[in-house]
């Protein structure tokens, strides 16, 4: 297996964006691609890192955070997007901001065929629900795109998903 490039800098860029924008509640269902970011948020005394049993809980949680005057972000992998669809009714109908940061599976050199149905349709189903989708494919653009997506969500009271391409995580060769 080819080693992934180390150190990986873009999770730190996302964390710095969260800090700069006063994100206080970070809800997540873990993904390998979010490991560093989750660790950073857990270590930050100004942030609550909230582990969920399923992704749609995070949408309801962050609706409550919004009611209470705090900003949040929701981390998941693309398989979790499917769990969220009806719950998106809450921020969409109530015109609440929601920032989702989604690590993609089922695209760049995917080794698990079960990931393909959701991964190949993540963007389509989000857009069908009225979510604004922005995608980052290269490491050096991640921070900027998350920042722009967050500004869009928080300043325009809309639901934004930033998709982090599987290519960012590098290619895992499971063929041998």
């Amino acid at each position: 297996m080819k080693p992934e490039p180390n150190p990986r800098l873009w999770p730190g860029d996302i964390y710095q964006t969260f800090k700069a924008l006063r994100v206080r509640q970070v809800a997540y269902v873990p993904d390998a691609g979010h490991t560093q970011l989750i660790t950073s948020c857990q270590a930050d005394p100004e942030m609550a890192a909230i582990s969920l049993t399923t992704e749609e809980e995070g949408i309801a949680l962050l609706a409550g955070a919004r009611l209470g005057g705090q900003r949040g972000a929701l981390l998941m992998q693309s398989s979790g997007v499917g769990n969220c669809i009806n719950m998106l009714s809450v921020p969409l109908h109530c015109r609440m901001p929601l920032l989702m940061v989604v690590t993609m599976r089922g695209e760049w050199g995917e080794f698990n065929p079960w990931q393909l149905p959701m991964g190949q349709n993540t963007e389509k189903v989000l857009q069908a629900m009225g979510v604004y989708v922005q995608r980052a494919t290269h490491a050096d653009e991640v921070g900027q795109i998350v920042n722009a997506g967050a500004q869009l969500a928080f300043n325009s009271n809309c639901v934004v998903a930033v998709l982090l391409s599987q290519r960012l995580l590098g290619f895992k060769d499971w063929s041998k």
Partner: protein
Amino acid sequence: MTEKKMGTLDRRHVMAKVQARRGDALMVTGLGSTTYDAGTADHLNTFCLWGGMGAAAMTGLGLALAQSERRVLVMTGDGEMLMGIGAFATIGAQHPKNFALAVIDNEHYSETGMQATHTQRGVDLAQVAAACNFASTETVYTDGELDAAIPKLFGGDGPTLVVIKVNTQRYPMSIRLRDGARLKDRFRENLLGATEAYY
């Protein structure tokens, strides 16, 4: 075999009693009957969900974390709670002291044809919450038990769950505000002030 205890309390009586003791607590209600019940006592500190089934408890958690100095009470039905049953685990793990949950349990999906919920078939939500690290849980059946339980919704260390067994009486829909965006703005303006609410 012991006979199963039935809920005899009236849901609107329960809502009126809880509301009378709410003080400055923030409330979230779940769809549908509990939100209708709350509509009979509309309040600036109440946010009524009329969608996102399963959202009520988690919305209350986000609010409780954001407003850690305020008491947060979630009121919702058994069907709505069952749809978001994982929230018991997430709330138990976060363990917010200022969080309380009242499940108005009529053991039916009363908006959709009175089908039985799992609580009619041996599922005990108070035991679920207790196993999920809630600080206190109980189930009440009578007016006297309700009176004794209400102070626990508004004081003492949470997370707290009170399951309130009610009868199957249905009431007309009594929504005051259909528009969630308006309801959200009203809630935020009252809690945070207009400057922060609309910035």
